[in-house]
């Protein structure tokens, strides 16, 4: 069975690429490491045959260029199992490659087994309330959940460099805006997240002095983003950031499973919610049933005192 890892260097981060290589090495079969990059590199960590597709546009690719680059590197025949780190490259091209080659596509995969002539992949469903095993009869593209697989420590290899030649960009007047508000969520040791329960933009903004006292970054639930109080890059959850701080504080967040999926790796979880039946208390280490607006003035005093 031919298995390949497809990754853009600089995309998901080296750790995630090593995890994908580790999984590929453990599955056996004919292995191929396919990388996309802006410039040739003399050596790379790789398993099996290593190829690096090179094009300057891969420094910061938009979807069309990334897709064209991947098609050129993969050629006419896709491997039976194409492993990609979950991340921006997969988001842009993973499923589209599946449609092109007629392969199944599964994201958020945290287990892969080869069983007879099938490939069995495990992933979450229903916002993380369930886990499913899907069996692929034909080819499959799998996006691997970060941290779910043991990283490989393969020797560095010299990849064969494939100059990808002319690749067209898909859009004109392209402009990238980095919105720094959610930038540090991935690295933050403490996160204070606010939800719809805060009631207003001012209420959400009112978390800032609290966050400052704790040296925390500000996160949000999807509802707070939908209300326009926080930016999409601050959203924590299954379709937002996956975070794992030392301390996660959820203020006025009900604890829908889709939110919990993004913060369940936190070491200590503290929740404040005025509804004692809110599901967030099932996922918290410490719970406070209180109205935030009554609690906060006294908490502030107690912390300053």
């Amino acid at each position: 069975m031919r298995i390949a890892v497809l990754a853009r260097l600089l995309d998901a981060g080296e750790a995630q690429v090593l995890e994908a290589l580790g999984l590929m090495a453990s599955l056996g079969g004919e292995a191929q490491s396919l990388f996309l990059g802006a410039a040739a590199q003399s050596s790379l960590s790789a398993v099996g045959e290593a190829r690096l597709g090179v094009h300057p546009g891969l420094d910061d690719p938009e979807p069309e260029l990334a897709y064209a680059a991947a098609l050129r590197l993969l050629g006419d025949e896709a491997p039976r199992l194409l492993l990609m780190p979950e991340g921006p490259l997969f988001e842009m091209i993973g499923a589209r490659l599946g449609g092109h080659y007629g392969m199944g596509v599964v994201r958020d995969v945290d287990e892969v087994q080869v069983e007879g002539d099938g490939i069995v992949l495990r992933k979450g469903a229903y916002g993380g309330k369930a886990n499913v095993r899907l069996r692929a009869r034909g080819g499959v593209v799998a996006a691997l959940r970060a941290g779910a697989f043991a990283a490989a420590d393969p020797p560095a290899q010299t990849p064969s460099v494939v100059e990808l030649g002319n690749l067209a960009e898909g859009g004109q007047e392209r402009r990238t805006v980095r919105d720094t508000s959610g930038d540090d969520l991935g690295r933050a040791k403490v996160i204070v997240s606010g939800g719809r329960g805060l009631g207003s933009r001012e209420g959400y903004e009112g978390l800032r002095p609290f966050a400052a006292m704790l040296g925390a970054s500000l996160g949000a639930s999807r509802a707070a983003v939908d209300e326009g109080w926080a930016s999409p890059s601050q959203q924590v959850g299954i379709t937002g950031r996956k975070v794992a701080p030392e301390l996660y504080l959820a203020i006025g967040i009900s604890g829908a499973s889709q939110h919990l999926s993004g913060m369940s790796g936190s070491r200590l979880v503290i929740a404040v919610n005025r509804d004692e039946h809110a599901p967030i208390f099932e996922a918290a280490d410490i719970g406070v049933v209180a109205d935030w607006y009554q609690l906060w003035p006294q908490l502030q005093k107690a912390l300053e005192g």
Partner: protein
Amino acid sequence: MRILCFLKAILDPEAPPGAIRFPGKVESGDVSTVLGPFEGNALELSVQVAEASSGAFVAVAMGDAAQDVTLRKALALGAERAVRVDAPLGFQDPLAVARRLRAAAEAAGGADLYVFGRQAGDWDMGVTAGLFAGLLDLPFVPLVQHAEVSGQSLRLRREIAGGYEESLRQTPLVVSVTNGPGTLMRLPKVKDVMLANRKPIDVLQPVATEPTLELQEIAQAQVTRQGRMITGDTAQQAAGLAAELRRFLVTGGGN
């Protein structure tokens, strides 16, 4: 522009914990079926682009009659037509779904813009839009937050890590839509909801296709922690929480 908007109804994703159970299958009790939130975002974007381009959108859903709630919502928000591809619900291989939606799109005469939600909150696959684009060999822009019409082109804002990217894209095009400043679903007027209830829904038979992926197993996931509550009156709660936070800050979260 002509727009095809693909919608899916799912079990209420905010049903309380335990209301949907997974003892080897999906047991949903009396949890209702609703339009998924990202499908709501897709619908909003379709309405906006149809209005701004003096065009029209057609809503397409594949599933059993439970899907009609989503199609009625689309009709209430101005869909020219609603089409349901009649197939049983349950786990469906997204590649097979995309193939059947492609057949439905062809039957509808194609479109300039194909609009999908980012992720349906039942199986959380998040891949159908990309698969569809790959099948039709059309450009694909994922995670669109905002769209502006400019002739036959669209200025699209898409979510990227830590921000967004804007660019001008030519149609035909496939997009998936996420939540953001431009895609919060509007509410239909009561009068339009009543009218929509009387409009017909066209039912199409699905084309034959072999699924690649099969559901082998489903099981309950555990997310609960053994927590404790800080009780008392508000002053006592504040003091208790402050003590916990101080302890955390002093030990640096180490213990």
